[in-house]
Every structure is written in structure tokens, then in C-alpha cells.
């Protein structure tokens, strides 16, 4: 048996509400601190307590952080799912399990490590509730011993996690050690998976995309945040609340922002509309059902030209769907959200770094183009734990777009709100409260002329709609350009958002296993940059990889590419609700390429 170093996927199967989250974070951090690239994904049910939950930690010397379908080491703590979990393993995997589950008879081609967790933690506490929690840290110790994690790093990770709770710290340290000691004394390692110190995480951070987005918004100078709780977007606003409380309260104790929990999503987006109109950098965060409810206001924002930032942390639809599963299912409907000829700007972050970056840039685009900007993240990026480079402080000063001040108006004498003065389709606006008799204009969702006056004239209507089209079309060169990897291959792949991580790995698999070189373009915004068209032009066949049923980004490409290029597109779209894995992409592309 050859040892497999730093290439392991560890899954903890438990029930939600059992407090295993701390234990999993400690494992993740310990590996990270050992310099080994790592990522953590939580697969949890849409309820509060008592149902099966799986947390998967992947350590990869190659730096792959996407989901890997195969589990190498299973920690089976949940009676309900244990049999099925064990059955789905490949031969050669390992199973740490709670001894009473008596799993070892299920199959003979995997390594079983029974651990009597209750007994292991018994000496540490006599309190039933505490004991239940400590079982979690005990499996950390067991896993640490089996995977050869450095116990010092485990202890440091525990120290970090319970920094402010001395008693808990002590108990948890003891539990981890007890697990470690038990494993050392009682278990004989028969699986090949180990983790060894590397130097690939130095200077990096671990964070989830929602927190990153929150930080981005804060450094983007957000001033008004509205929300209505909905999974998986709630934690975006909740971390914003906590960061803002820390960094956006003045010395006088006064906040430079307002965060309001609205009564529903119609109100949340309505408040953003009011705030954006009145000059705030305003945002909201939601998920599918909320996006649907925002339709009418989204059209108002487009048409009355109100800056707004809306985060859609995508979950699985249609309808309420699977609230705790991930997808890229809102792309097409959000691009055209609302009736009539409405069209929106979309940003498509793929990494926590981009959640941060688009977090502040979204406001720049929204205010520059005076229109709602939708940032389409997803549950995988938003709620899972990712390694990242420390975020880069915004490299541009805040730009509020074309806003006329009292002084500007003194100089100009007046202005026309919807007039295309600069030929870029973007008019000048004023903010309510501007102290000048010519400052006011009448914002409305009804037809209007350049002076913002009500008009039912065909010519006014057509001119205005053509300008709006131009304005949004122009945005394509300003929004984040796509990122190209590779050159000269016959086959191209387009992907975006969280599919990126599987794509990187799939590209390598295609190259090394299937001898297929593919160039890869990661799209980061809609409307599409001209480079997207160029990429398709340069490749005979272009696979569009995404996480939905209908091939939604492929659809947007069909709508916008030069028609002659459309036959080159091939949609690779699936929606299992689990984060995309490289293997699926590799096999499908290879098969369709005849490899």
C-alpha cells in the first residue's frame, strides 16, 4: 500500500444541530496551518436540527478546491445515513465510526475504525449535553492521528476557535487529545491517506464568499443595506452587520450606514430603490424566491435608472426548490428580470476574492451606469469555506457617477435628467435635497422624455429605450473582462462562477488523462465582453459548463453572439444541487470529443 500524501477527501456525516461545525472548522484549519491547500463544503438539510448533514474537507497538494465526488475517509456519526454513506465509498476508503453503529460488517473492502466516542469523552465531562458536543472534537483527534495531522496545529486551531471561551477551550482540547490518544492506542492504520506539511498556504486566508461579499460591500462604501432573511444569503448580511458594527461606527458612536430587516423582498428592493434614488450606495441580498418577488421593482430600477446592488446567492429552483443546495439557476431569468424589454447587468464572481472585489465594484458599476447590478453568487461560493489570497484594498477611489451638485447647477443653469449629453447613454442626475431651484426632476416608471416629463409620444419612447439599450450594451467593456487560460487549442470551454474550481481541475484531467488540450474562458459579467465573442471565434467547439438544467449562460450566449458562431456552442449543464465536480465535466467533454 503506497501512502497517498495530501490528496484526501474527508467527509463527516452527522446530524445538524449537533455542534460538529466547530470540529470541522478545526480540522480544516489544522490542515491549512500545515501549509496544505484545503477547502470545506457543508451539505446540510433545510431544517434546523436532527437531519443528516455532511461536511467534506478536501486537502489537495495540487491546490484543487472543487468538490471531489469520491470520499476517501468517512467519519460516520449518524445512524440514519451511515449504511448508505458507507455503501457509496470506493474500495480502499476508510471509515471512522461511532462504535455502536456496528458498521464493519457492511462491506469488507474498506478500512474500518470503530471508536466508542461516548467512552472516549466520558472522563472529560459528566454533563450529557457537553459530552454530546465533545464527541465532535474527539473525532478530530482520531482523524488527526489517522491522517498524521500535527497535533500542535490541531491544538492551535482549537485555540483560535475558542479564543474567547476559556472553559470550552480546555474541554475541547481535552476531547481532541482523548480522541488522538484513543486512536494511537487502539487503531491500526490500514488506509493510505496522510497529510504532510507543505508550504502552499502561507499568507493565505480562509473565508466564505458571503463574508467576503460583505467585506467588499463595506469597503465599497455601502450606506444602506436592506434584507429579508433567506438561505443562502442571510449570512451575507449577518456578517455585514457584524463588520459594519466594527468598522463603520464613528468615534461619536454614530453609524455611517443603516441596515434594515424589511418585511419581505418587495420592501427590501423598494427600500434600495428609494435609497439609490436619494443617493445612497444601497444593496440587498437574497436568493431565488426573493429575486422573483423583486421583478417589478427591478424593471423600475432599469427604467427610472436607479443605481442598486442586488446579491443573488443562488440556491436550487424552481420555486422553493432545495433551499440548502447550490446552483446557477437564476442567470437567464435575472438577465431579463421584469416584463417589457428589461435588461440587467450581471456580475458572476467565481471566488471569494471576487466576492470581495465585485462587492465594492458593483457599486461603481451601479452608480456609473445608473442601473441595478445583480451579483450572482451561489451557495457553494457563499457558504462554504475557501482558501484565498488576502483581499486587495480597492485600487480606485470611490466614484459616484454623473451626479450634479448645487455648484454644477449654478454653472450649468439646469439639466435634463435623461439626455445623452456624453454619447454614452448615461444622463446626469441630481439627488433630492440638492439646494438649487433647477435640481429637481420627476423620477417615474412611466414613459418620459429627456426632461423626465411624462410622455406617451412614440418618438420619446423609442429614443429613450434605444438609449437604455445602448447604455447597457456599452457596459460590456467596463465590466470585469473574462479571464482566459490557454491558447491555441481547438476546443474551448466557457464557465463561470463556482463552476470555475471544478473547471480548473477538469482542464488538467482532460490534458493529462484524455490528452485533450482545452482553452478555458471564465466569463465574469453580462452583457458579454467582446473577448467572449473572440474566444468563440477562435475555437471550433466551445463547451459551456454550468450548474442548471437549461444551459442558461449558453442561452445568453446564443442570444448575443454573432449568429454564425452559435453552432459552435455545446451546453454542459447539470443541476444535482451539489457543487460541480471535475470528474463529471472531464468525462462528459471527453466523451463528446470522442476521447
Amino acid at each position: 500500500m503506497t501512502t497517498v500524501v495530501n490528496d484526501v477527501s474527508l467527509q463527516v456525516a452527522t446530524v445538524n444541530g449537533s455542534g460538529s461545525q466547530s470540529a470541522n472548522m478545526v480540522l480544516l484549519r489544522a490542515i491549512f496551518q500545515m501549509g496544505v491547500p484545503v477547502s470545506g463544503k457543508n451539505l446540510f438539510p433545510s431544517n434546523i436540527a436532527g437531519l443528516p448533514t455532511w461536511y467534506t474537507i478536501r486537502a489537495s497538494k495540487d491546490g484543487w478546491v472543487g468538490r471531489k465526488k469520491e470520499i476517501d475517509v468517512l467519519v460516520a456519526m449518524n445512524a440514519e445515513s451511515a449504511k448508505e454513506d458507507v455503501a457509496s465509498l470506493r474500495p480502499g476508503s476508510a471509515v471512522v465510526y461511532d462504535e455502536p453503529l456496528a458498521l464493519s460488517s457492511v462491506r469488507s473492502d474498506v478500512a474500518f475504525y470503530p471508536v466508542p466516542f461516548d467512552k472516549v469523552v466520558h472522563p472529560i465531562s459528566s454533563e450529557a449535553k457537553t459530552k454530546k458536543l465533545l464527541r465532535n472534537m474527539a473525532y478530530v483527534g482520531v482523524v488527526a492521528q489517522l491522517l498524521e495531522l500535527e497535533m500542535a496545529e490541531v491544538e492551535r486551531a482549537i485555540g483560535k476557535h475558542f479564543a474567547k471561551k476559556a472553559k470550552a477551550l480546555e474541554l475541547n482540547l481535552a476531547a481532541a487529545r482523548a480522541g488522538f490518544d484513543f486512536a494511537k492506542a487502539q487503531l491500526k492504520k490500514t488506509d493510505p491517506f496522510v497529510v504532510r506539511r507543505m508550504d502552499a498556504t502561507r499568507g493565505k486566508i480562509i473565508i466564505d464568499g458571503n463574508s467576503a461579499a460583505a467585506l467588499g460591500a463595506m469597503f465599497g462604501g455601502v450606506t444602506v443595506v436592506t434584507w429579508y432573511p433567506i438561505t443562502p444569503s442571510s449570512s451575507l448580511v449577518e456578517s455585514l452587520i457584524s463588520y459594519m458594527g466594527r468598522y463603520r461606527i464613528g468615534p461619536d458612536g454614530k453609524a455611517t450606514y443603516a441596515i434594515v430587516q424589511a418585511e419581505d423582498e418587495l420592501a427590501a428592493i423598494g427600500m434600495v430603490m428609494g435609497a439609490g434614488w436619494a443617493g445612497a450606495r444601497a444593496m440587498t441580498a437574497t436568493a431565488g424566491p426573493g429575486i422573483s418577488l423583486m421583478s417589478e421593482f427591478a424593471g423600475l430600477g432599469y427604467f427610472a435608472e436607479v443605481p442598486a446592488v442586488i446579491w443573488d446567492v443562488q440556491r436550487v429552483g424552481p420555486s422553493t426548490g432545495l433551499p440548502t443546495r447550490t446552483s446557477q439557476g437564476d442567470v437567464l431569468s435575472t438577465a431579463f428580470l421584469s416584463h417589457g424589454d428589461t435588461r440587467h447587468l450581471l456580475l458572476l464572481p467565481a471566488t471569494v476574492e471576487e466576492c470581495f472585489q465585485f462587492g465594492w465594484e458593483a457599486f461603481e458599476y451601479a452608480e456609473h451606469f445608473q442601473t441595478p447590478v445583480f451579483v450572482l453568487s451561489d451557495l457553494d461560493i457563499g457558504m462554504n469555506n475557501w482558501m484565498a489570497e488576502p483581499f486587495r484594498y480597492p485600487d480606485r477611489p470611490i466614484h459616484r457617477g454623473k451626479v450634479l451638485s448645487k455648484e454644477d447647477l449654478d454653472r450649468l443653469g439646469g439639466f435634463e435628467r435623461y439626455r445623452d449629453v456624453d454619447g454614452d447613454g448615461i444622463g446626469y442626475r441630481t439627488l433630492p435635497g440638492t439646494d438649487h431651484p433647477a435640481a429637481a426632476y420627476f423620477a417615474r416608471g412611466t414613459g418620459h422624455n429627456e426632461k423626465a416629463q411624462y410622455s406617451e409620444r412614440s418618438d420619446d419612447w423609442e429614443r429613450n429605450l434605444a438609449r437604455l439599450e445602448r447604455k447597457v450594451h456599452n457596459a460590456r467593456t467596463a465590466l470585469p473582462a473574462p479571464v482566459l487560460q490557454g491558447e491555441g487549442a481547438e476546443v474551448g470551454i466557457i464557465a463561470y462562477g463556482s463552476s470555475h474550481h471544478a473547471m480548473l481541475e477538469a482542464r488538467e484531467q482532460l490534458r493529462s488523462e484524455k490528452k485533450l488540450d482545452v482553452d478555458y474562458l471564465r466569463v465574469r459579467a453580462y452583457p458579454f465582453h467582446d473577448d467572449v465573442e473572440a474566444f468563440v471565434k477562435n475555437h471550433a467547439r466551445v463547451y459551456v459548463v454550468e450548474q442548471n438544467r437549461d444551459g442558461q449562460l449558453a442561452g445568453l450566449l446564443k442570444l448575443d453572439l454573432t449568429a454564425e458562431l452559435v453552432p459552435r456552442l455545446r451546453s454542459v449543464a447539470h443541476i444535482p444541487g451539489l457543487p460541480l465536480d471535475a470528474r463529471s465535466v472531464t468525462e462528459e467533454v471527453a466523451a463528446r470529443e470522442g476521447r
Partner: protein
Amino acid sequence: MADAKTNRIGLTLADYQGGKSTLCAGCGHNAISERLLNTMFELGIQPERVAKLSGIGCSSKSPAYFMSRAHSFNTVHGRMPSVATGALLANRTLIALGVSGDGDTASIGIGQFVHLVRRNLPLVYVIEDNGVYGLTKGQFSATADVGSKLKTGVVNELPPIDTCLLAIELGATFVGRSFSGDKRQLSAMLKAAVSHRGTAVLDVISPCVAFNDHEGSTKSFAYTKDHDEPLHELSFVPVFEDIGVEYNAGTTVDVRLHDGSHLQLHKLEESYDPRQKLQAVQRILEAQVRGEVLTGVLYVDPAAPTFLDRLGMVETPLATLPANEVRPPRTALDEVMRSLG
């Protein structure tokens, strides 16, 4: 214009005018626009400080017909409250005036209305109440009275939503009912509402001459005049004229408003004190039973904290905070990054 009368900030009435109304001649809403315009003129409020907000409907169009020098946002049907909330979050110094209809408020908009008053958001919320959807040609709204009859003969059977009652119970701090045809009362009430800090809900019966001003209607001019039951006579003493007004405490209730002006209610009903919430609720319920159109200031609480007070915001409008106050320094990001490393 040289000799036009000017107000205390030196503006003439013309400075408060709006576009030409496209509402029907005689529509109650036009009379209300006129009152609003005069109120702002007489109080000497700088038009640029005002933000007009509305939903959709004939009533919601009316902000276009007064005070063109104030910014205005004609939003979507029934959702003006949220837009107003956002606008005030962005700029807490605005004097916000919401104009809505009974359909816009009580039918499609009742949800946002409830949550607005619950927050006691500082704005004047005028419901131009005609019991029908004017702009879509006269269907009943949710304030239509039981037994009210459309021209087509259709009779309303569902109980009306009493927006004043709702507002009082859910947290509004200035609640009144008036009539577009009662210039004096409406004027005083509007001035007081503008001087109040908190949600001021004014349900103003405003007959729709096109669809709901006939016999059998309970929101017609004639019906409203007949059934009008004023609680008191109102007078308003603005802060800039307050040189120690005298009044008889037995017959007058004097309410000192947030900005120092006074609302005086000369009692017609002996014991009525609009600062008593329970009494207000009870009196409105009685009026419902008796079929009265009870007008006057039904409830006022001049001291309650508003939504904006509760948020602990800086005094400067968030909208115009300088960049260095809204983007934390590089050191802040460094600190966060270290904690995540």
C-alpha cells in the same frame, strides 16, 4: 411677480407650483394638491428639502401637479412606503411627503402600509381616499363602505379597511381624517402633520367625480358633507409665530409638536383628547357603528422616537458622506485579513 406675496423664506406661491393637472376637473385630488402647495408655502418650507413619493393611481400622479422644485418619485403600485423608507435612510434631512390612493394603500399596498406605520417613519402620508380605483375606471377599493353602490349598480359587501384605526394601533404617531372639500380643516391638519416628526397618516376623503360621486356612493361630496362629524376645530400656530398663544384649557387641547409649533384642537366633543390611544380607537369604532365620517386629528404622540432615531445614524445624510467616512482605511482590511489567516 415683483409684487407677489412672499413667504418667510422669500418665495412666492409660484415657486411652489407644479405642472398642469391632467386629473379630471373637480377631482378631490386637485383640491388636496392645492392644500399641500399652500401648506408648504405658508410654512415657508424650502421646496428643495421636500421629497414627494407616490405609488400608482390618479392620486399618485398628483405630485406632478405641485411643487416642481421638489424631487419626486412616482414608483410602482402599492409599494411607495418602502421607497420612501429607503429615501429617508439615504437622506434623513428630507421632508418626505407620501401621496397615495385608497387602492394604492389599502388594497395592494396594505402590507407595506402596515410596516411603514409600525416603524413610525417620519413622513406625511396622505391617502387621497375615494373608495375606488379611479385610474382603472372605478372598481371598488378596500376602503369602500359596505353598501356603497357603483354607477353600474354593483354594491360593495366587504367591510372597509379603516386606515386611521390601523395606523393608530400599529404605531403611527399622528393620525387624522379630513375631507378634500374642507379647506380649513385640511390646511391646519397638513401644517401640523408637516411639523410633526413621525409617521403622520392623513386619510383625506377625496371624491372621484368620474366614478364615485353619485347617489348611493358613500364617498361622494354630498355624502361626506352630510356625514362629516368633526371632533374639533383645528388651528395651527407655526413655531415662527409662536409668541405665547393663549387658550382655554377647558375647551382647547394644545399639542406642542416636535418643531415647537402648536396644534390646537378646539373641542367640539367634550372629552376627546387625541393623545389617548385607547380613546381614539374606541371613538373610531363607535363612528364606524354610527356611520359617521369622523374627521379631525384622531391621535397624536409628538414625542415617540422615529425609525430614523432608532438607527443611531450620523446626522449627515448617508447619501453625501465623504468617501473617507464610508470606506474604512487599509489598516482595517489588514486587520480583518490577519484574523482570517
